Every structure is written in C-alpha cells, then in structure tokens.
C-alpha cells in the first residue's frame, strides 16, 4: 500500500511584494522514509519553498501541506509534524549546547528527555563530548549544524525540512551529515532538503527535483538516474548557478 505523503506542495506559488516570482506553480511530495533533494542554484526559490512550508510566508496561490494540513490554514497544527534545520543554525550563544537542546526541544513540544538522552543524541550527530556543556559562543558553523540536527532529531517529528544544511561544512562533516540523514530516513522520516550540491544529492536522495528560477524543471527518482542523466543534470544545474 502506498503511504500518504507527509510533505506536499500543490501548485505552490509565491510572488513577493516587489513582484519577484520566487516559486512558480511547484508540486511535489515526500513520503515517509524518503529523502527529497531540492536542487538549484542561488535564487532558484528553494528557501522560499521551505519558508512556505513553515508558514513564514503566505503562498500567493497553491498550498504546502504537512501531514495533510495546509500550513497557511492551520500553521500551529501543521508545524507539530515537522522539524527544521536552517542553512545557518543559530542558537543562544550564552547557553551551552545541552541548554540550547533542552530549550528548543521542549519548545517543540517534547518533554521527558534526560541529560543522558541529550548526551547520546549529541554524540550521534558527532559533537565531541567536551563541547556538550560549553557555551555556543565559540562554536564553529559545523558544530552549530550538529546541534541543529540534534534538536530536529529529538523533536521526533515525522517530517524534517533542511535548507542547505551542508553548505559551508568541510567534506568530512558534510559526508557524516548525509550519513546521519540516511539513518533518519531509514527510521521512516520524510526529509525535504534543499541543496546546490549535486553530488550530495546524488549520494543519498531518493528523489531529486531541480529548481530553476522558481520552476521545478525536473524531478526524478535516484533509481531512474543513469550516469548520463547525472552529467546532463550537472550541466543544466551549473548553468543555473552561474547565470
């Protein structure tokens, strides 16, 4: 039996007040146990799409649904089912990693975690133990991304949105991050990730959608991608980046 999609864009369109059409009639869906990579260059409309899911923006037309709930119609109900990791995770710099975790996880509606739970999840995302009780002040971007994904893991929502989570990470951290996403997918999460890194997308995504100037120009499952496709995609995609 085909599972219901957890994340769904239906004719999603966003035109900013200044007239820029950032997202144009985009439709796709992400099912439990699926990683959907939204691939596109700068300005393609990836962040706008994710912001529409989180109701940070109202769609001009169409809708973004989380667990079947339209975000703009009932944002509070919709956001219960999603965790979010932004491009540059920002936390309270005068709190420790564990304190940040404890706050944001409870804000996400999860209570009952112990310090041992925090320790285990921070180790799982690869943050060395000596950093757990350090203030965020001196954390590198990679360390902050790790905290961000730890918060998302502990929120334990069925869907996860990630906006260019690996941009700016060194290759090793990027690789580990993708491994982690893979394991979350295996736990049955529906994951929507935006990226401009085609190789990362190819590595772990189940489905790849290519965005260009607000349009979803192509969508393909990884299984259907041949090496030739990848090259073609790469050319098309990089053209988008450099324009």
């Amino acid at each position, binding site marked *: 039996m085909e599972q219901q999609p957890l994340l769904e864009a239906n004719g999603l369109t966003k035109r900013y007040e200044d007239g820029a059409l950032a997202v144009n009639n985009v439709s796709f869906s992400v099912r439990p146990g699926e990683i959907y990579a939204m691939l596109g260059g700068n300005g393609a409309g990836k962040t706008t799409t994710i912001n529409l899911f989180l109701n*940070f923006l109202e769609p001009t037309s169409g809708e973004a649904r989380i667990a079947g709930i339209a975000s703009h119609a009932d*944002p*509070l109900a*919709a*956001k219960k089912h999603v965790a979010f990791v932004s491009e540059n995770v920002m936390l309270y710099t*005068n709190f420790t990693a564990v304190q940040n975790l404890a706050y944001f996880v409870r*804000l996400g509606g999860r209570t009952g975690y112990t310090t041992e739970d925090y320790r285990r999840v921070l180790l799982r995302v690869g943050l060395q133990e000596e950093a757990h009780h350090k203030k965020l002040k001196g954390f590198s971007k990679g360390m902050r991304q790790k905290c*961000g994904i730890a918060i998302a893991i502990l929120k334990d929502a069925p869907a996860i949105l990630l906006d260019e989570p690996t941009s700016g990470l060194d290759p090793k951290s990027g690789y580990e991050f993708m491994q982690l996403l893979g394991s979350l997918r295996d736990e049955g999460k529906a994951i929507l990730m935006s990226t401009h890194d085609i190789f990362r997308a190819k590595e772990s995504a189940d489905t790849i959608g290519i965005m260009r100037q607000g349009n979803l120009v192509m969508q393909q499952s990884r299984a259907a991608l041949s090496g030739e496709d990848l090259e073609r995609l790469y050319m098309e995609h990089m053209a988008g980046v450099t324009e």
Partner: protein
Amino acid sequence: MVRLIIEKELRDIFTSSKFLVTFGICSVLIILSFLIGARNHQVATAQYEASKRANDLQYEGVTDWTRVQEYKIFLPPQPLATLVNGVANDIGRTIEVRGRGELRSQDSRYGDDPIFALFRFLDLEFIFSIVLTLFAILFGYDLINGEKERGTLRLTFSNAIPRTGYIIAKFIGAFLALAVPLLVPILAGILILPAFGITLAGDDWLKLALIIGAGIITVGAFLALALFVSASTERSSTSFLVLLSLWIVMVMIVPRLSVVAADQIVTVPSVDEINSQKSRFMSQIWNEDRGRMNSYTPPKSQNVQEVMAGFNKFMQELADAREKKFNELSARLNEERTNRQAEQQMLAMLVSGVSPSALFTLAAGEINGTSLRMERAFLEQAKEYQRQYAAFMKEKTGMNTGGFSFVVRMVTDDDAAPPKPINIRELPQFAFTPLSAASGLGAYTGYTGVLAVYLLLFFAGAYRSFQRYDVR
C-alpha cells in the same frame, strides 16, 4: 510553553553582562538613595528639634505674655519624604504665628542648605522615573528584533508556537528580570532604615508600597513601549535609537515643557504683585484710620490704667475693623491666585500626562503627601493653630495680640514677690498631621490608572505589530 519561554528569557538575561551592569548600577543607586535619604532625615530631625528648642529659649525669663509677639512653628521632617522628596525640600518649614495676620512659610531646606539641592536627584522617585525607565528600554529594545538578528526567531517559530503566547512570555520574562535589580536593593534599603532610627508608621508602609507599585507600572509601561518598537523594526540599532529619542522626549522634555507651556498659557499673578496690592490697600486703610485716631478723645479719668485701657480698646476696635477689611481683600486675591494656580497646574499635569514618567512623579507625590498639596496643608494647619494661639493669648493678656497696641506696665513698689516667668510650653503646641495616604488616593489612582492604560496600549501595539512580524 509560556513558562518555558519566560524561564529561557530569565536565564538569557541573567547570564548577560547587560544584566550584571544594570543590577550593579541599580543596587548602588537605590542603596545610596536610602542612605542619603536616611542621613538627610536624621539631620533634618536634629535641625527641627534644635529650632524648636531655640524658639522656646528665646522666651526664657520672660515674665509677661504680652511680650510674646510671635511664636514660630515648624514643619517636622517626614521619613518618607526623604525617599520621595517631592516639594518637601523646596517649601518653607517655618511659620511665624501672630495672633492675627497672614501666615507665610519660610526657610526651605534648599534655601538653608543649598548643598542638599545637589543631592535632590537621588531619591527613589528619581531612580524610578529616570534610571529605571532607561533600564526598561535597555532591557526591551531588542526583545523581538534581537532574536531575529541572532537567528533564533526562525528556529523558535518553526515550532508550533502561538505568537500571542510568545510575546506575552517575552514581556513577562523581561519584566521579571527587570524586577530583580529593582526589588532586591529596595528591600535591602528598607532593611537599613531602622539602623538610622527611621521607623515607618502603618500609613508610611502603605504609601511606600503604593509608590513602588506605581513605579513598577511605570517601568512596565516603558518596557511595553520598548517591546512595541522592537516588534515594529527589523534591526535592534534602529529600535534603540527610536526608543532613546522617545525616552528623552518623554522623560526629559515633556515634564519640563509642560510647566513652561502652562506658564505661558495661564498667567498667575506673582506673590510680589499680590503683596504690593495688599500693602497699597493696607496703607490706604491706615490713612483712613489715622484720621479717626486724630479725632480720638480719651475718656475723662485720672486713672492712667483706665485711660490706657480705653485707648487700647479703641485701637483694638480699629485694628479689628482694619483686619477684617484687609482679610477680605487678601482672601479674594489669594483665592484668585489659587484658582489661577490650580488652572495652571491642571494644564501642566494634562500636558505631562503624555509622559508616563511624569505621571509616576505625580502619583508618587500625591500618595506620599509631598505634592503641591503639602505646602497648602502646612499653611492650613498653621491657620488652625493661629486660632488656638490667638485664643490662648487673649486669655492670657486680654488682648488680641499681633495688632498694634500700647502696653503699660505698672511698676509697683509693693514688696510683692518678683514676677514669675511665664512657661512658654503652656502655649498650645503645633503638631503637623502629614497628609494621609487616603487623602492622596484619589489622585494617585487616577495617575496610576492612566499609567496602566499606557502599559496596555503599548502592549496592544506590540501585540498587533508582532502578529504580522516577519520571523524569517
């Protein structure tokens, strides 16, 4: 959820250097204001006792009540006036009471010891209306846009957080964080008062509690204003500048401007003008009486005593008549002046009502009894005392003293015992009843009510702005 955000806000603020600095400055200023207030009260009390003693000493050895031409009464220092000065140091503390005539207070604290005017700023009222309102802005200017700049607002609202709960929690959190640097040193200050021999009566406690209550509402109003501006701007540098400007206008300019504006719009005849009018009238009725005195024929009698008594009776009657006429004029002029003054004050209060900190000053002065009513109360009670004094002197001397009369003292050669000195303490003693909390409660409630309305309006503005705030 609200509780969680409040806890986070408290921890966030308590671990910030901003809080440490605020707490430090607040503690020092508040404790200092209590210390200075207590010290001033001690000095003022000593001065008050000394003046009273010196006044009585002046009549030591006097054997005749007719030689007591006047008796000075003094405004006793009040413990709470040292914490909320109001006009307590500006008004005269001494009144020379005669059997008749107008009463005028003189010898203000600042007039006697200008050095105290230097420290006038350091009372609780100053700390609330100037220092704490500034701190409220420091705590509040980046409550919303600061979270956006830090990038934490996005992550927060990726969760199912209602905006209403969030902004309420932010306000309460910052408010509680601000209350600590405020209430802890105030409590400590109250505890050191007894060490200076200052004991507060029941009414004083009520006053103090209400003053602190109004102060907290004032701080809350400024915090809500800061929240409002913070939720209406993207950058904390912008909101800081906007708020600083608003603060300068509300705290520094409006209260002063209100006085100037009221002075321009309603003119009140000066005391000098009124006095010259009065003295013109006085010399006019004197001239009339001089005619009557010239045509006075003493009673035909050989007895000097009888002649003098007749003369004094005549003079007394003239003086009484003169006083009656003079009092009528004086009452009319005074009433006119009082009415105009009331108009002026009303206008000034209306204008300064634009400023929450001015409202606090007014509320604190009213409840504490150190508002403009204080001088009036002193004069009124002195007038009442004057009646007792006149009645007493009349009984002792048979005359209404304070007017113009001749006293003939007979020197008798009888071997009678030497005249006994009078006991000046027999005079009725003046006891000032401070304005009660109840007497100022109406005005206090009015001002504090407007303050609360400000708080609610600012918060409503913040709420409205935040509903549409771009949390990305």
